[in-house]
Every structure is written in C-alpha cells, then in structure tokens.
C-alpha cells in the first residue's frame, strides 16, 4: 500500500498533474508521524501509512495554492468534501488517495493501559483486533477497542467515499459504543453541574488556539477572537471567555465538523473538547438529518433550509 502510494505520488509530480503532494512521513518521536507537504518528487519516498497517522491533512488545503495530491483517511475525505461544499477547494484541483482507515492508535490510552510513558515503550504493533506493546522485554496485548481514539471507535465513514485512488480494501465502521461514554456521563449531570464541569475544564485553557488551527473547518482569515471592534472576547484566558470561544467555535463549525478528534488530541492541557464537538455533530444529525462531508454537491448546513423545520423552538 505504501509502495503504491509512493510511486503514484511521484508519478503525479513528475507528470506535472499536481503541484503539491500532502501526506504523512515518519515523525521525529517514536510512534508519531508528521505531515509531509512537498513539491519535490524525491520526498515522496518518505510517505507512510501506519496506525499513527493522526493529523487531518485537509487543514492544509485552505492554505496551499495550486493542484494537490492528498492522502485522505475517512474523516479527512469528509473534511475535504466539506471544504468543497464551502467552495474553499475545487474538486478538479485535487487527486485524493483514499485510505480505508481501521482506526488510529491513541498513545494516551496506551500509556494508561501499559502504565508507562510513551518513550518507555519499545514497540507498538497492530494485528487486526489486537494491539501488542513491547516494553522492558515484556509483551502485553490489548483489544483494539481499548487502544484506538474514541473518534475512531465512533467513526461513521472509515473508507472514503470521495477519492481518485483507493489504497487498500474498504473497511467497515467499528461502531463501538464506549466512544460515547464521556458525553453520556455529562448528560446524566444536572444543568448546574454540567456548566460547572465546563467552567472547570476551560479554566486550564491557555488560548493557544491549537484546536482552532488544526481544524480544517476553521479557515477564517480573521477569527472572531481576534476582532477588536467590537471585542467579543478578551485575549486574557479567563474561563468565561475560553468557554465562549469554544461555544462559538463549535457553532461556527456546525455541520462542517467531521469528528476527526484532532482538537481534543492536540490540546496541551487535555480539555475534553470532543465532548463538545461530537455533541454538536449529533445535534446537527438529529435536528436536520445532516451528516457533514458526505455529498459534495450538497449545501452546507447553515446556508441550507427547508420550508418546514425546527419550528418547536419558536413561539
């Protein structure tokens, strides 16, 4: 699969069919990968596909100009379609390498399971439904459902629908219900407790905006938090303003968020952001039967309307 990707990507650059190739290459730390964005055909030798390809590469499409050959897992392909719906990217400028994705390994979960720091692990391999960890000469095994990201367990489209070349056999959704545990727990709290939970979590926020910058759906040239006339939120990281930032960000990406989970993964202070984004994803599905990034000819959620809908909110 990797070989096919490398030779196809190289060919695209050689034949001048694309200007850029965006994919994954091995990272500088164990068990990581990093985005590879290149015009050089020799760099394509470094492209990889493995259980650690976490980033959502569609994020770079709103920045790179020209024709792009891009590697896309299920969630990424939906983000790409969402960008096409938003008219930010033209389908004819893309060559999509669809990667059927069996789920990405969550190093934080493995660290908890193995009770070790990630740099103390020697090897992590995935075999179908098991993840095998080697550390200190000892081997341990865990069912894959305990080692994958929650958003992978809940993923609705692991195999891209929109692609030019499919790298591998289609893979079905895992649909593991444990992925929704954190949201279920929150819904069992009374309103005051829920608000108090979010106030506490958001008091750690340092306003790095990594959640916003890593999200393909956030591509505004000037974000509302940077607006000074009027100033909606102060730059100082008070929990009240941090919470408003998250609420409005989620509303702004409603219908365009594909639950790729990047926001939660990148947060340096471990705020459970997916408990916000996934809930918005479900609200949108429930209210308007809309799933982000499924049909490139569909209208985006908030620009579309039906004659009769959502009337029970209105007097």
């Amino acid at each position, binding site marked *: 699969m990797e070989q096919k990707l490398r030779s196809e990507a190289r060919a695209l650059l050689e034949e001048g069919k694309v200007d850029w190739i965006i994919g994954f290459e091995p990272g500088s730390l164990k068990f990581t990968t990093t985005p590879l964005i290149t015009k050089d055909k020799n760099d394509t030798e470094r492209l990889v596909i493995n259980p650690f390809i976490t980033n959502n590469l569609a994020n770079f499409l709103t920045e790179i100009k020209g024709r792009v050959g891009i590697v896309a897992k299920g969630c990424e392909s939906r983000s790409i379609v969402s960008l096409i719906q938003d008219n930010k990217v033209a389908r004819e400028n893309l060559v999509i390498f669809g990667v059927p994705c069996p789920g990405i390994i969550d190093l934080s979960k493995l660290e908890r399971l193995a009770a070790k720091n990630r740099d103390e692990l020697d090897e992590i391999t995935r075999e179908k439904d098991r993840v095998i960890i080697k550390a200190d000469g000892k081997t341990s095994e865990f069912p894959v459902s305990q080692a994958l990201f929650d958003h992978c367990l809940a993923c609705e489209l692991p195999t891209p629908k929109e692609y030019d070349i499919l790298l591998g056999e289609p893979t079905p959704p895992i649909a593991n219900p444990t992925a929704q545990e954190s949201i279920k727990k929150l819904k069992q709290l009374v*309103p005051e407790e829920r608000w*108090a939970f979010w106030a506490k979590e958001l008091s750690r926020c340092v306003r790095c905006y990594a959640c916003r910058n890593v999200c393909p759906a956030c591509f505004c040239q000037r974000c509302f938090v940077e607006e000074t006339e009027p100033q909606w939120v102060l730059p100082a990281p008070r929990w009240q303003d941090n919470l408003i930032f998250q609420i409005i960000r989620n*509303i702004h990406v409603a219908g365009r968020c594909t639950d790729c989970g990047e926001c939660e993964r990148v947060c340096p202070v471990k705020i459970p952001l997916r408990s916000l984004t996934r809930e918005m994803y479900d609200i949108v599905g429930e209210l308007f039967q809309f799933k982000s990034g499924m049909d490139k000819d569909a209208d985006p959620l908030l620009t579309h*309307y039906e004659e009769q809908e959502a009337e029970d*909110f209105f007097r």
Partner: protein
Amino acid sequence: MKQETEWQPRLVGFLCRWCSYAGADLAGTSRKKYPPNVRIIKVPCSGRVDPLFILKALRLGFDGVLVSGCHPGDCHYQTGNYRARRRIAVTKSFLEYLGVAPQRIQASWVSASEGGKFADVITEVTEGVKEVGPNKLFSERQGDGAETTKRG
C-alpha cells in the same frame, strides 16, 4: 411609595426591523400591557443575529435573550429568517447540553400586525426567565483569580 424588592429579570430582545419591531410598536400604540423587562435592539433581519450576540448578552449578565423575526415565508429579505431558524435551533440545543436553562434563549415569529402576540410573547418569556432565576452563569466561581491576581 412601594419599593420593588423582588428581583426583576433583565432581558434583551433582538427584533427584526420589518416585522417584529413594528409589531412591538403596535403593541405600544394599542396600549397592550406587557412586562417592562425587555431592552430592545433593532436589527435589519432576524438573520442578522449572530450566536455571538446571544453569548455576549449572557456574558454581560442579561438573564434572557429573545430573537424575533418575520414568519417563515414572509421575510423581507426572503431567506433571512430561515437562516436564523437553523442558527437559533443549533445554538439553543448546544447551550442546553452545556447546562444553560432553555428558558434563557427564546425565539418567536411576530409580524407587524401582531401587537397582541408580541405582548403575549414578552409576558411568557419574562415569566419563564423569572422561574430560572438570575443569570449567574459567567459570574466568578470559587477559586477564580486566586492564583493569577494576588501574587506580586
């Protein structure tokens, strides 16, 4: 003189200038009685209302927000109120999940001839907000600022 000691909710209402604002005007000229708790902000269309307005209002301490526009199909700008409908639905559901009482964010369709309806809407909305009490959502919580402001 009777001192008003009972807490009075402070509401903000975003009324679209073509229908709801005119409806509010009509309620006034028809001498319809309704609670005086709402501060009205005229917007060109209910579709102008950004969820940021709603959040900012709550952040500033308003106890409730009302958005009111033309009936679906009657928007002066054709589709503005359809957009507002989707946006408010999403905003309200999301905030409810977070723990904000649903009575704090209300919406209505009031046409220019519905002075009576406007008065009823304000009455109901005020009652609803009275039930849930003052907005303490964004007030300082225990432990706030202890580390950041007192040192040095």
